[in-house]
């Protein structure tokens, strides 16, 4: 399976703001473990909050990476705070909106709002907030074996950017 936890980029203002969505579907294998039938309990598929945090991290990470043409290795270093006040179920869609609070050579701080909707209802409700801290690996992780090439932004990113009509050229 793929480690891609957003489906589409809805808006992207590099270094400032990005909105992405994720459809939640019973076709996702991990929902069959979370949660599986247990004794007298029926299966209860509910989207893991940790994967919502990853969805926001991918949204915010692309936003931060785009500010420097994806040349930096943008690594999630700290979940400053995350609150998920209500859960998400198959048939619903999650919306991640990330903003850059601060960005410098060492890394970036982002804030984010998580919303959900019933597919097709057109109504979104805010269900949580996720604030993250990223480091630019080459600048801050001396002494750790981080590869030379940018392993963070690869093929999956290109696919998702192209689908959004935001093809990224290698040079500007």
């Amino acid at each position, binding site marked *: 399976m793929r480690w891609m936890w957003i489906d589409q980029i809805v808006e992207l203002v590099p270094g400032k703001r990005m909105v992405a969505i994720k459809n939640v579907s019973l076709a996702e294998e991990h929902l069959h*473990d979370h949660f599986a039938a247990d004794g007298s309990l029926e299966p209860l598929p509910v989207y893991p909050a940790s994967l919502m945090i990853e969805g926001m991290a991918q949204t915010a990470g692309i936003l931060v990476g785009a500010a420097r043409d994806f040349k930096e290795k943008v690594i999630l270093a700290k979940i400053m705070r995350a609150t998920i006040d209500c859960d998400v179920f198959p048939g619903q869609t999650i919306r991640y909106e990330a903003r850059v609070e601060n960005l410098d050579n060492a890394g970036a701080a982002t804030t984010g709002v998580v919303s959900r909707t019933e597919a097709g209802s057109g109504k979104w409700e805010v269900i949580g907030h996720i604030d993250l801290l990223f480091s630019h690996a080459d600048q801050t992780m001396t002494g750790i074996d981080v590869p030379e*090439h940018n392993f963070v932004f690869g093929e999956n990113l290109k696919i998702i950017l192209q689908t959004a009509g935001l093809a990224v050229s290698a040079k500007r």
Partner: protein
Amino acid sequence: MKFDLIDTVLEQSPDRIVAIKQVSLAEEYLADHFPSFPVLPGVLMLETMVQAARRLLSNRGETRLVLGAVKGLKFGSFVRPGETLTVDVTVTGSVDGTYECRGKGRVIRHNGGRPDETAVSGRFTMRPIRRTLPDELMRPQEK
């Protein structure tokens, strides 16, 4: 992907649990995270601690608690295929059916080269599943 991240429970007491998650190239998501540099995603370190906490709290009759909040969760060393993540989670308190936890994860290396290091540490809260926002948190709809 299969979403059972706890491979073995090493220790368990009423408010503390120590468990391990093995990291192996057989895990498919590693092909994407990252190609040519496979490492356990940070959120799966968190999820391992969450699943450990869920097991611990199931002994108190609480089933299917989910992650509700995270505070100050830092990531340290990477955990690579062939290494093991050991998580140590303590329940520090409970308020109105939500449970506050503190967790730490260390990467155990088997090749005798680099020493074991902290991979993750921080606090999180477990709560029952909610289908709708609690009344006190009902927010105006977004435009």
